[in-house]
């Protein structure tokens, strides 16, 4: 054990030397570099959003977002397959307090409305699909916590997730047919910067991403909650 600890400390120190070179080389700059200047000067005029980070995530680097959505989908698929059960029964745990149940009845609609607000206004204020989806998943997690013995309706979650993902790909292909390229947002008119109905197809794309991410995370947590405690696999 002593030798293993000293090898671990030696490896960490070597990695620390590499990191220290980053710290030594870095100098705080006072003006933007070339690509950042291009994004800051041209993104509101070309894409039509007020939030430059949203423009980069959805249109300029839209294929990265497609890859991220694919990775999350694969994660939810693997977890749903590993934790599959033949007969879903109610577990015997049903002792939660009255305060929790009453408070959750008020908090769930509020958190779902907040999540929908965050991803619909993703192109005007800080926010977007991933943040809104995480807030919706938090609301559904409260549902699991307040009533742990009730089974979640997986069919509804899977249906919303599949339809959202499929429509996202269809909008991307529509960008290929009607506008500049895959996942181009100019298939709908750009409008004025600052209105709700502006920036082409970005509100629709972010709403679909928000719903997909929210239902995926909820289905992961519901599958983990429903595994029985002492199953012995031969």
């Amino acid at each position: 054990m002593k030798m293993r600890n000293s090898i671990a400390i030696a490896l960490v120190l070597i990695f620390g030397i590499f990191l220290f070179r980053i710290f030594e080389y870095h100098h705080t700059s006072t003006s933007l570099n070339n690509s950042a200047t291009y994004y800051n000067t041209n993104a509101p005029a070309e894409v039509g959003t007020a939030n430059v980070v949203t423009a980069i995530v959805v249109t300029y680097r839209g294929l990265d977002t497609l890859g991220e959505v694919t990775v999350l989908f694969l994660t939810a698929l693997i977890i749903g397959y590993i934790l599959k059960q033949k007969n879903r029964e109610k577990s015997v745990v049903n002792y939660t307090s009255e305060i929790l149940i009453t408070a959750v009845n008020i908090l769930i609609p509020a958190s779902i409305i907040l999540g929908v607000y965050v991803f619909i206004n993703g192109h005007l204020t800080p926010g977007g699909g991933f943040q809104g989806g995480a807030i919706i998943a938090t609301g559904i997690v409260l549902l699991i916590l307040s009533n742990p013995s009730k089974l979640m309706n997986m069919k509804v979650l899977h249906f919303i997730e599949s339809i959202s993902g499929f429509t996202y790909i269809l909008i991307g292909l529509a960008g290929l047919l009607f506008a500049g390229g895959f996942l181009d947002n100019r298939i709908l008119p750009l409008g004025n910067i600052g209105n709700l109905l502006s920036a082409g197809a970005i509100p629709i794309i972010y709403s679909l991403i928000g719903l997909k991410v929210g239902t995926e995370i909820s289905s992961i947590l519901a599958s983990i909650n429903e595994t029985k405690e002492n199953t012995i696999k031969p």
Partner: protein
Amino acid sequence: METFKIIMMATLALVMIISAVMAVVSKKMPLAILASGAISLLASVFFLVLASPDVAMTEAAIGAGLTTFLFFIILRKTEQNSHENEK
């Protein structure tokens, strides 16, 4: 004003490093999970001071909320298994 901000950020950084060491070293699991939740929450404040509100919102929702809940529910499911073994 600038020096006040620097002192505040240095204090937050010190609290985060102490929480990280405590999360790795401590023997009780709930304490370690709560320490990592505190790290994510203070990192969200750090992101806001570094002028990135999008990243701050994402880290607060996913890091401080969902990851801590995920660790606690897995802890509960595995502790019940280990207690069945020790009986």
